[in-house]
């Protein structure tokens, strides 16, 4: 009977199997394992991981299954990634669940979110040095924004052939934030700096919270219309949340809507990692550049905080650890900051302060994506 089974297997889909598929399936299983046992970004790693299994079942070409063939179910589900309309809907939901109070109570933390975007541009330089074209380099650089939907959006516009590698790289490093960031944070700060206590956040009025999404939208999108799709939706969602009169819309945006899009987006991204197009030299380089991007982004945030301290006094000083939260990866990097801070002073609660640069980092990388899109889209 085992003989028969083996023979049968040879004739079936096992016939098309390549080693690459097995490797990708193993990676998919690893993603699922990490999500379940380590709780690493499970809402994304599980859909992506299972999508990897689905995309690497070695079916024959032309069977009407693959996500690259027209009118297949997988291609229809992939449309929101392919044409880039899933990320703005996710930003709508994120806006409807984000509380900008931390930023409003201490606006200067915005600049930490700006500084951390240096990771994007230095990675772009690295990608250019490795002979990627300019649009590809821009799409790779955005991994340093540490923001999944932004990375998928820009990659779908500038380098759709690299989308799978860029998205998987971005989410992998976002999941690894607690591993990557602490050593860099410790290396670049003195013990005294890590012990800095920041003054408690001031009260933020309802009016400020309502006006913030409107003013924030006008301020950023007048400057960078290319960031309109992402920032427009982010601030729109936040207005739904803060207006006080559209609660039911905000609830739907941050529950059913974002969940439906997250399920299909994650699954589709996973499906798009078919071994033959994914296991390439480019993907390896993209993963290496992604690690660089996260490290530089973290370092830039911390160093900029130290620089700001040169101009600040007393309890206005910033604990430079929170600079690391400027990379986005909401809210993981803010938590990492908090936990590292508590290693040195159990009564120092940095989480609330770190949320400021954290959400500023989301805005910052969306602006950077808008700049890259505007400049690089004509070069494809």
């Amino acid at each position, binding site marked *: 009977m085992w003989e028969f089974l083996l023979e049968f297997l040879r004739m079936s889909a096992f016939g098309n199997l390549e080693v690459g598929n097995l490797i990708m399936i193993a990676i998919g299983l690893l993603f699922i394992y990490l999500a379940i046992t380590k709780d690493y970004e499970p809402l994304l790693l599980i859909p992506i991981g299972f999508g990897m299994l689905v995309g690497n079942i070695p079916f024959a070409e032309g069977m009407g299954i693959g996500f690259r063939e027209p009118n297949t179910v997988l291609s229809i589900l992939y449309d929101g990634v392919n044409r880039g309309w899933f990320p703005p809907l996710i930003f709508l939901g994120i806006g409807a669940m984000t*509380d900008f109070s931390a930023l409003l109570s201490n606006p200067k933390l915005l600049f930490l979110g700006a500084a951390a975007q240096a990771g994007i541009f230095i990675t772009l330089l690295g990608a250019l040095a490795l002979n990627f074209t300019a649009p590809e380099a821009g799409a790779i650089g955005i991994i340093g924004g540490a923001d999944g939907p932004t990375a998928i959006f820009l990659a779908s516009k500038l380098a759709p052939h690299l989308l799978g590698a860029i998205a998987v790289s971005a989410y992998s490093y*976002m999941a690894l934030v607690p591993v990557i960031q*602490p*050593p860099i944070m410790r290396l670049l700060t003195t013990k005294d700096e890590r012990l800095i206590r920041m003054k408690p956040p001031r009260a933020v009025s309802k009016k400020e919270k309502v006006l913030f999404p409107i003013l924030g939208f006008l301020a950023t999108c007048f400057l960078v219309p290319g960031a309109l799709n992402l920032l427009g939706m982010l601030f729109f969602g936040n207005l739904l949340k803060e207006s006080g009169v559209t609660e039911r819309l905000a609830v739907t945006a941050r529950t059913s809507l974002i969940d439906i899009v997250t399920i299909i987006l994650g699954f589709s991204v996973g499906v798009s990692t078919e071994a033959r197009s994914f296991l390439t030299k480019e993907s390896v380089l993209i993963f290496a550049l992604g690690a660089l991007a996260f490290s530089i982004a973290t370092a830039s945030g911390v160093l900029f905080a130290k620089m700001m301290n040169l101009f600040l006094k007393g309890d206005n000083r910033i604990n430079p650890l929170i600079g690391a939260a400027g990379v986005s990866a909401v809210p993981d990097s803010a938590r990492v900051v908090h936990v590292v801070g508590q290693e040195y002073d159990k009564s120092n609660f940095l989480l609330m302060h770190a*949320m400021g640069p954290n959400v500023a980092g989301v805005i910052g990388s969306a602006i950077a994506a808008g700049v890259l899109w505007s400049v690089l889209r004509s070069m494809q």
Partner: protein
Amino acid sequence: MRPGLFTLLLFLPTALLAQEPASRGHNPGGMVESLIFGLELTLLGMAIVFVGLLAVYLFMIVLRRTIVRQQTVHAAGATPRTTPPELTAEVVHAIALALYMDLRTFAEDDSDEITIHKITRPFSPWMDSSKTALIARNQMFGKRQ
């Protein structure tokens, strides 16, 4: 609702549809012709709206009678269910309360409370809890002071 008017209306759609429509839409010929068309359409349209809702009305009347008859058959002997209940004083008060609550103004309460409790539980699809706990517990990044 005299039949005469409605009989007239019956012929309007035929008349309208018999004409060449393209000649009216884009080359209105003259304002007068256009307005006559508009008047015809108004009469036709209002007639159909009324007839449509009249049809619904007739269905509703038939429906009510059928159900009332069924109920009467079913409930023969029992207390009749067809008399509408009167609005008692309690009901009126309940309505008044409901209306009061419904029409209450939108209170802008400009909170003075700090918002820390919101920040500490940012629920997000990117949420991840045990990861940081892991750091705290396992001390995986040496260099502890």
